[in-house]
């Protein structure tokens, strides 16, 4: 998951700036804003912000699924993990904090 997000990050950080002097330069948007300028001055920043929040949401879901699986296989968990989960109120019969 992290590797996929990293590859996407290389697009906004590097790849889409490379055609700037050629392909993007003549393209205008938002009332004559040069696209190559706007990619670096605005779109990249907010794409980066969006990517973090999406990544956080995805990873939180993964962690939730792992927790559910851990509670399902409670007896097979190592003792220190069981202790950690109990301390946080997450047991097969209890709810997660």
């Amino acid at each position: 998951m992290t590797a996929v997000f990293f590859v996407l990050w290389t697009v906004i950080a590097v790849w889409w700036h490379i055609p700037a002097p050629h392909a993007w330069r003549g393209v205008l948007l938002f009332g004559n804003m040069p696209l190559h300028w706007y990619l670096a001055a605005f779109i990249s920043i907010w794409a980066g912000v969006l990517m973090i929040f999406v990544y956080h949401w995805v990873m939180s879901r993964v962690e939730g699924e792992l927790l559910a699986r851990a509670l399902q296989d409670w007896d097979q968990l190592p003792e220190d993990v069981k202790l950690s989960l109990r301390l946080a109120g997450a047991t097969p019969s209890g709810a997660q904090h």
Partner: protein
Amino acid sequence: MRVHPEVYRVLIPSILGYVVLIFILAALFGPRVAAGWMVVGSILMYIAIAYVARGTTAHAMYLAERRIPPVINGAATAADWMSAASFLSMAGAIALLGYDGLPYIIGWTLGYTIHAFFIAPYVRKSNTWTVPDLVETRAGGYGPARVIAVIMLFITSLTYLTAQLVGAGVVFSRFLGIPAQVGVFGALFGMGIYAASGGWKSITWTQFAQYIVLIVAYVGAAFLVATLVGIWKPLPWFGYGELIQALQSRESQQGLAPWTTPFAKPLGGAAGQLNWILSALLLMLGTIGLPHILIRSYTTPTASAARLSVGWALFFIGLLYCTAPMYAAMARYAFSGLWGRPIAEVQAVPWVAKFLPTGLIRINDANGDGILQAAELVFHGDIVVIGMPDMWNLAWWIAPFVAVGGLAAALSTADGLLMVMVTGITRDIYHRFINPNVSEETEVRMTRVLVMVLSVAASFLAFLAIQDPRFALYVALLVGWAFVFAAASFTPAVVLGTFWKRLNRYGIVWGMVAGMATALPYVLAVGVFQAPPLSLFGQPVGTIGWGCIAFAVNLVVSVVVSLLTQPEGEAVMRFVDRMRLPELVRVPAVAGASQEAEEPR
């Protein structure tokens, strides 16, 4: 979200009281007195907040009790990050360099995205206390690794801190009418007191308030000018394309290359596409290795909160960074309006007349025709933000308020840097090597004293910097190179340390040494002694872009040395596992291990 009621009880009345007081002073004594009190009053407000949020334990001093909610931590990180350079100088650099200044925008923002992916949650899950602590723990308790990390931390942070104090001194001198050398010590007074009062706990809440001040000042002034220029289409960030076209039309009449032309001007001593890309990449890699940013991952309750906090940090930073190019366009447009007019008439324009004596604007009638050509007007980058209220004739209180924002940016970053260095001495050297049995009370007291001592030392360096313009030049250069040094030292150690178990103590140490040995000579040769830059694939590489090479050298040396020497033992493998384990519950990863790691080292 857990709120801190005492701080909110102070924060809101403080800001309201501050605003009312300024307007009363303006009515009674006039704008000049009120402008001075705006600056002084803001520092008093920060001290009040810091005092209320003060901490008395080592846990509060070093980790803000690990209880800062993600949004607050994100805003504090943003304030920690956005220095006087971001606030005052970045828009100026873009105004001067055009598209070739934009690596600062993407470089100083997109590093946070990979920080959220690869760094923040893992650093938090390590349950260490400081960055050198993390490096030593990952190196299997190898003391020299911690010592080298502390040295790197000082190289990176001290010059950065000095430059922040220079920025604060300049703000003081402009709005209080006192010499900048004296103003530096005014900044010391504020910064030292609130950092000493409660370490990271006080600093975090103060930075939160400083973020509010700096972002309202920066974006507020830009929006007011945007209204005058008429670029709300529907928001100014989307509407300044017409302004750019009008500017470029004036430039073509003057025979200049359009402002948005890519790869036309040098950045870090070299121009070209490869240098542009490498410079942006290096700033990203440096961002994630800066100790005063890394340490913000320690102050959240969980790894998940640390990751989310980075998202909020970039959101808050992005508000300023996407406004900076707009500032640059509006300022350049204002300057282009002077071209082609009689020089005597230009010199009589109120804002030009105001800034000519400061040297921020220089006019030279090179061809002697009495008409101002584009090449005959030179401006300093700092005027873009400082001078914007005057250029567009805004209300009297906007200019000092922008200065208060700049001061907030300088002080908030200075605090973070100061605290990181003090922690390096008290926690990483004194507590670890000299007196491991030191009582908590003594350690806290020592931290407070050292904050004041280091504040005075940094202020003295800033005093020297303002006295000697040559020294000031080197300080400014070194701030940019702080990113090169961070990327050449900490970034590979932290990333490899998390994702490659085979990395060992010798790989960490020799990687950091080799990275720095690659970065430092090049930076000195090209940056200080003006040697011609080396070329890669036929394109020159400037000092900033060279940091990518140093980063790669660190990676390669770390890997090769680790493979040639013994792997680390079972304890380090368990430590890495603990960092990489998904966070199943919203408490520090594994209870037993966490408690062990929370024990003072």
